[in-house]
Structure formats: structure tokens, C-alpha cells
């Protein structure tokens, strides 16, 4: 999933200053699962904002809408009415959702309510960790299913740097050394010989370095 984290309340309040009719758009998919911008978080934020408004004698009215996904236009149509009634929209979707809301509701100011972090997994209750950078060309078959691009701090392709110690990354002892994980996995699988292969320089065009990317699936295109 896309993992995000709610922005600090002060930052959100500052960006909403001067607006009285606010729509908070939660998102029913990734950010719900990672507890950053689902309906629950949006409702909580709405009551805080209304309360803070009262403290300042400003009649702040907050409406919460939760499209199933902000990254699909059909779900945005469902919430169009509530959005149109507001002065401003605080989107709690990921960066894609926020931008797509802004595209769909041209006349509205759409503000971000979360910081989008990474593609990751729920590692533990309340803990998410990064697993993929969306580099566009998966090499997990060479590395025992552990990604060196996302999980080595230096994205080393050919083994750990000298700073790996006790299985941890030198930059932070709470981060596992990606290459230790690759080694453990390949050892378990009896495929350590894989590590002798020199992995060639990556073609980063498949990643963001080739410019903003687009995926097209011809067979489902109607007018293609």
C-alpha cells in the first residue's frame, strides 16, 4: 500500500486559516489501512478543527467525505456535491489522490492533509516499513525477494557497504541492513551462488529518472 502520515495539526490549521466551510476528503483505500487519512482520522480531525474554531469564535463547519479511492475519478463524482458546497478541501489521500481531487474540482483549493511516505507494508501494529520504490524494473529474482533499491540505504546492487554491522544499517540501528536480509534469504534457499553475479548498472529510465511515467494497457483502452 501507499503509506502516509498525517501532517502536524499546526501545519494543517495554518493552511486552513480564514476558511469557514471546510470539506475533509478522507480516502477509503491505502491511507485508511495505514491510519493516516481514513474516515476515522478525518472525523477526528474535523471535530478538532471545529473545536479550535469555537475557541477563536469562528464558525468553522467541517464536512467529511470518504470516496472509496481518490485516485479513480468515478469515486470522486460521488462526493462532488459536498465538495462544491465547501470553501476549501483538505484531502487526506496520498499525493496522487490530492492531485486528482484538484484536477477533478478545478475551482476549489485542495490542500494536503498528509505527507505521503512510501510503498510499504504493515510491519507491526502501528508500524509500516518501506519495501518498494517503484523503480519500474524489478530485480527481486536476483536478490532472494528482498529489494536492494528500496531496502539498502545506498541502493547498492552488489552487496553491503562496510557499514553493515550486526545485521543493522550504519545510518540507524532500527533499520535492518538490506543486504543482510538478502544474504539470509538466499542462504535459506540454498542459492548463495546468486551473489557472485555482478549486477550491471541499472537503467533508471524505468524509474522517475525517465520523467513522469505512464502505464498503458492497450487491450482495455476503448478508443486505442
Amino acid at each position, binding site marked *: 500500500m501507499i503509506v502516509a502520515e498525517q501532517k502536524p495539526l499546526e501545519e494543517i490549521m495554518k493552511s486552513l486559516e480564514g476558511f469557514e466551510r471546510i470539506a475533509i476528503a478522507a480516502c477509503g483505500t491505502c491511507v485508511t489501512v495505514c491510519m493516516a487519512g481514513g474516515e476515522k482520522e478525518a472525523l477526528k480531525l474535523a471535530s478538532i478543527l471545529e473545536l479550535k474554531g469555537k475557541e477563536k469564535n469562528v464558525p468553522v463547519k467541517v464536512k467529511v467525505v470518504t470516496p472509496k479511492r481518490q485516485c479513480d475519478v468515478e469515486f470522486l463524482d460521488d462526493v462532488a456535491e459536498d465538495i462544491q458546497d465547501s470553501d476549501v478541501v483538505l484531502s487526506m489521500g496520498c499525493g496522487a489522490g490530492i492531485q486528482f481531487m484538484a484536477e477533478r474540482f478545478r475551482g476549489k483549493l485542495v490542500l494536503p492533509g498528509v505527507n505521503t511516505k512510501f510503498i510499504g507494508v504493515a510491519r507491526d501494529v502501528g508500524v509500516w516499513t518501506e519495501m518498494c520504490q517503484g523503480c519500474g524494473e524489478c530485480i527481486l529474482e536476483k536478490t532472494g525477494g528482498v529489494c536492494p533499491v528500496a531496502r539498502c540505504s545506498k541502493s547498492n546492487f552488489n552487496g553491503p557497504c562496510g557499514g553493515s554491522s550486526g545485521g543493522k544499517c550504519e545510518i540507524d540501528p532500527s533499520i535492518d541492513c538490506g543486504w543482510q536480509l538478502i544474504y539470509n534469504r538466499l542462504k535459506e534457499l540454498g542459492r548463495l551462488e546468486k551473489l557472485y553475479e555482478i549486477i550491471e*548498472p541499472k537503467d533508471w529510465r524505468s524509474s522517475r529518472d525517465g520523467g513522469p511515467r505512464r502505464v498503458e494497457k492497450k487491450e482495455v483502452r476503448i478508443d486505442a
Partner: protein
Amino acid sequence: MTVEKSNLQRILEAGHFSVTAEIGPPMSADAEFVRKKAREMAGIIDAANVTDNQTAIVRMSSIAASYLISQEGIEPVVQMTCRDRNRIAIQSDLLGAYALGLRNLLCLSGDHQSFGNHPQSKNVYDIDSIQLLKALRRMKEEQVFISGKPTKKPAEFFLGATANPFADPEELQFIRLHKKIEAGAQFIQTQAIYDVEKFASWMEKVRKAGLHKKAYMLAGILVNKSLKSLEMTKKVAGMRVPDGLVDRMRKASSQEEEGVNIALELISEIKKIEGVSGIHIMAVGWESIVPTIVERAGFLPRPKL
């Protein structure tokens, strides 16, 4: 076409035990600072490594400082990390370095920028150190860039890489050493050695795999000026400093003298180990001690080839 070999390469190929040291460029544009350090070591060592923004702290560039020391009669070993430059910048800078007459190159991943004085920066890591070694070997052998496009006058460096005999997991680190040599490393500089026993058993593995015959193994020695410096070294990830040495330093009447003694003892033990081709002395911030160490270790005069 024959390539003019570096002094370091000639010394190693002639079977001499090489002595190299490290020069850290200043956090300024002060050329005289670099020249002065070089003059202190001229005639004392065979070559000096010039670090590339070590610990991710912004300093004068390794190539520029290397050129300055070469003018003072010291042959530099340029360092190039993969942290700050993509393959375009790396190849471009190295063509420039070679054109300036610099002939030795040490390829490194580079310390992560979070350790330095610009932790906010974006890192690059377009290619890693093994890919860099392989690219430069290919440039020499096939006269091509990483892209496969040809160059009429390639940079033909004497290529080096680093190895840490104390880092774990041991097996994986050893595979990495294999790969570095296969990729093109002609010499290997090790992490600083304090635990000679552990280093000797690592060298045994190196010999068993025949790696010392494919690349010159240069043993790293760090010279500590004080107990504090030794204790800090001990804390660095991948360093192995026996407690006994720390105790010795603590009890010493002169810590500077004890630091030198420890370094000399390590050198005398290490140079006896089969397969070790040279010593690399790291006394960053205390470069002025290098002549004393080299002299007292009996390495003078240096061979003139």
C-alpha cells in the same frame, strides 16, 4: 599503446612492500593547506590517498587536491565515491583527473550523507562501487563508456577498492571482495586493523582463494593520537578494537607516544603476514606523524623506480 604506470603500481609490481598514507583535503579552498601536508610527506611514502568528502563532510574535491599534491612530488590516489555523482559526472570527472596526470583511483560507495554536514542532501548512488570498478576496467580494455559508446583516449587508472575484514556477515563480505577483484580492482585497501589475529585469519582465506595473487592487499593502519580518538574509532560500525588496546592507551603516560607504539607494533606484525603487499597509514588530522611512523617502522628510504 603502453600506458604509463603509476609509481604505486610500479612499486607493487616490482615486489616492494608499499607504504601509502592518507591526506584529508581542507573544508576550504586553501591550496597551501594541501601543499603543506604533501610537502611533509614527500619522499616518505609511495602515494597518498586523497579522500572524497569523507564522512560526507564538504571538503575540497579529491581530484583538485590530488592535483595539488602531485605538484609537491607526492603521487596521489584519487578517491571517487558513488554518493554524490551519477555516471555522467563520475566518468567526466575521471576523464579530467586522468588528463591532469592522476593515475591511481580508489572506488568507494561513500559514507552515507546522514553522517556529514549536509544530512538534508539527496544522495545519488546511480551506480555502486563494483559497477564503477567494472566500468573503468571496461573503459581500459574496450575503450568504451558505461553506455558502450567509444572514447578515443580512455582513462586507464590503476584501480583500487576497499575491504573490511571485520565487517559481517563475513561470508557475504568475502563474496563482495571476490566481486570487487573480478570487477577490476588491482589493489585492495583494508579497513583499519587493530585485531591482528582476526586479520591474519582473513588473510588466510584471501590466500586460499588466491585473491592476493589477483590484487595487491594493502593493510590499513589507523594512528590514534589519544584515548578519546581510540574510543571513538571503537564505536565506528565495522571497526574491531580489542579492549586491551584501549586499556593500554588509558594507562599510558603519553597517549601520543602510545598511539605511535601501537601503530608500529601492528605494522610489524602485519607486514609478516603472507600475501600483504603494503601498509596504508591513516592519520587523518595527524598527518605530521606519518614520517615518524614510516621511519621508525624501517620503511625508509623508499624505492625509486
